[in-house]
């Protein structure tokens, strides 16, 4: 049986007064007026710890790994207090049939109330055999768990846009989950997403009891509303035209902008430059490497990562809009020059005629 938040606080020895204080704090956090505290208290009192299942499909588990790096709250507190995480292949005690039972029971007992967190893409090639769990395809499992879910979250770039396995030529037909289920999906892209962002999305759902405001791609605006570039601390160097020209050069040590090293910050929506990684320790750019755009759809196919513009497919390595364009420009110039030469040869007569028209008049009044 799941306990309400109040019940679980009672068991930890908190008094009702503590609880009201906690609710008021939560209400203030939620942007409510202090007097609204009482109203929130009743909501929390009734609320059981929500049932959550975490599915694993075509993934590298770095989303799970990232999640356990959360610092506020730490994952222990989230697992013990915020939610009842009944299924996650990475951490759960049960295996095999017992694991399947945990999943089935959660679905049966919480119809319409449980939250589904999905890590990984779903392969649709060859009838789904490229990812099977317990003899069932990932695709069929996804359909089963999503059907009665209260909300579905797509963790990471895999679940929200396909990520690495969906890069060309996508040998297994890896597909992001929003393309497979008829439910709104909260997309939390990133490879992986930032731990505290993941935790914040979970608490936004479970503690605030709300779906965060989403953009047109289903991403929480809270974290994906701005480009890495918009809040990057190296931005003044960008505007001043101060760029790193080579790794570990003098400019690199001064922390100049990594744009010319291929930084994808200007085309990438993520919270890295504000929220940062690992409890605010750093983010890729701070450590001297450009952003590779890991939260953007199709970012693997926007490489090579060390040149500002993506290669155009079919034009060879390092072929960007510029290399192609310069070729076109040069060809144009050459064509024009050739045309001019040919014209002077072939149209001698016409040119002579024009030059001979000495006695021209302009009739007045026309």
């Amino acid at each position, binding site marked *: 049986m799941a306990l309400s938040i109040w019940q679980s606080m009672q068991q930890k020895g908190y008094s009702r007064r503590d609880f009201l204080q906690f609710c008021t704090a939560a209400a203030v956090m939620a942007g409510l007026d202090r007097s609204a505290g009482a109203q929130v208290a009743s909501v929390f009192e009734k609320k059981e710890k929500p049932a959550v299942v975490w599915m694993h499909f075509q993934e590298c588990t770095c989303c799970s790994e990232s999640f356990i790096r959360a610092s506020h709250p730490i994952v222990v507190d989230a697992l013990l207090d915020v939610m009842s995480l009944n299924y996650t292949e990475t951490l759960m005690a049960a295996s095999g049939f017992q694991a399947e039972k945990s999943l089935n029971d959660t679905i049966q007992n919480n119809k319409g109330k449980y939250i589904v967190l999905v890590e990984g893409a779903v392969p649709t090639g060859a009838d789904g055999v490229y990812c099977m769990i317990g003899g069932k395809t990932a695709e069929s499992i996804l359909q089963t768990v999503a059907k009665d879910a209260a909300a579905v979250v797509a963790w990471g770039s895999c679940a929200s846009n396909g990520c690495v396995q969906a890069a060309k030529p996508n040998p297994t037909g890896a597909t992001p989950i929003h393309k497979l289920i008829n439910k709104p999906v909260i997309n939390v892209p990133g490879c992986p997403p930032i731990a505290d962002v993941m935790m914040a999305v979970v608490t936004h759902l479970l503690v605030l009891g709300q779906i965060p405001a989403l953009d047109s791609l289903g991403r929480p605006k809270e974290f994906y509303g701005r480009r890495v570039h918009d809040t990057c601390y190296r931005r003044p160097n960008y505007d001043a035209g101060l760029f790193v020209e080579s790794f570990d050069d003098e400019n690199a040590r001064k922390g100049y902008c990594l744009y010319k090293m291929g930084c994808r910050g200007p085309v990438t929506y993520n919270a890295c430059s504000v929220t940062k990684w690992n409890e605010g320790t750093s983010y890729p750019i701070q450590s001297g490497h450009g952003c590779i755009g890991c939260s953007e759809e199709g970012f693997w196919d926007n490489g090579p990562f060390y040149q500002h513009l993506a290669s155009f497919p079919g034009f060879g390595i390092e072929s960007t809009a510029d290399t192609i364009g310069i070729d076109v420009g040069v060809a144009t110039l050459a064509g024009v020059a050739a045309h001019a030469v040919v*014209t002077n040869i072939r149209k001698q007569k016409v040119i002579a005629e024009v030059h001979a028209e000495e*006695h021209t008049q302009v009739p007045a009044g026309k």
Partner: protein
Amino acid sequence: MTASRINARTAPAAVFPPLAEHPVEYRRVYVWELPVRVYHWINAVTLVLLCISGYIIGAPIRAFYAAEAYQQYWFGWVRFIHFVCAFVYVFNFAARIYWGFNSNKYARWNAFFPLTRAQRQEMVDVFKADVLQTKLHGPISTGHNAVAGFVYFFTFLAFVAQTITGFALYSSMSNSWLPRMFTWIVPLMGGEASVRSWHHLLLWFFVSFIIIHIYLAFYHDYIEGRGTISSIVGGWKFEREKQDD
């Protein structure tokens, strides 16, 4: 229209009589009205600036590395120039579209499409005379010839594409209504990285257009000798009077 044109195909000898025997007579025709000329030069200047600034945005030059970030803003200014030109250029272009429905026949919208048989025939002739040069004399239109008109149409399409991709990119740095109208383009094109790539690639279309276009302006002026270049400044072209007039 045909009346004001010399049919070089059928009567070259009559039109270009032997030297000094029959002086050629010219008539002044007011082809490019002021709005077209103003449009043209605003367009030319902003487009050149957009190409230069855009190229620098894509591949910044190494410059001013001696100064600190707080002392300068040159790259910001390049971007600023790009954005200012972008706005001027777009509104200028919009005005030209409006003018396409009010102008004289030379600059009218239908001059940009080979809608009539005559126009299509003219395209063939222009191709033979100016590209293959298998014919000495091409048709000499008063406005743009049918090929030029149609090429401008594609150029206008490129203007539109560049405007859309440009404003889509700009929408992430602006809250004003015009760029905001283009936000949806970004996901449609698969993210900002690919929008940028296309926006950048189109730069080279314009570069090529400008090279060919300016060359052809000189070419026609040189071959035809009737003030093609000055027409886009003053508006007037010269047209040969028909001999039998």
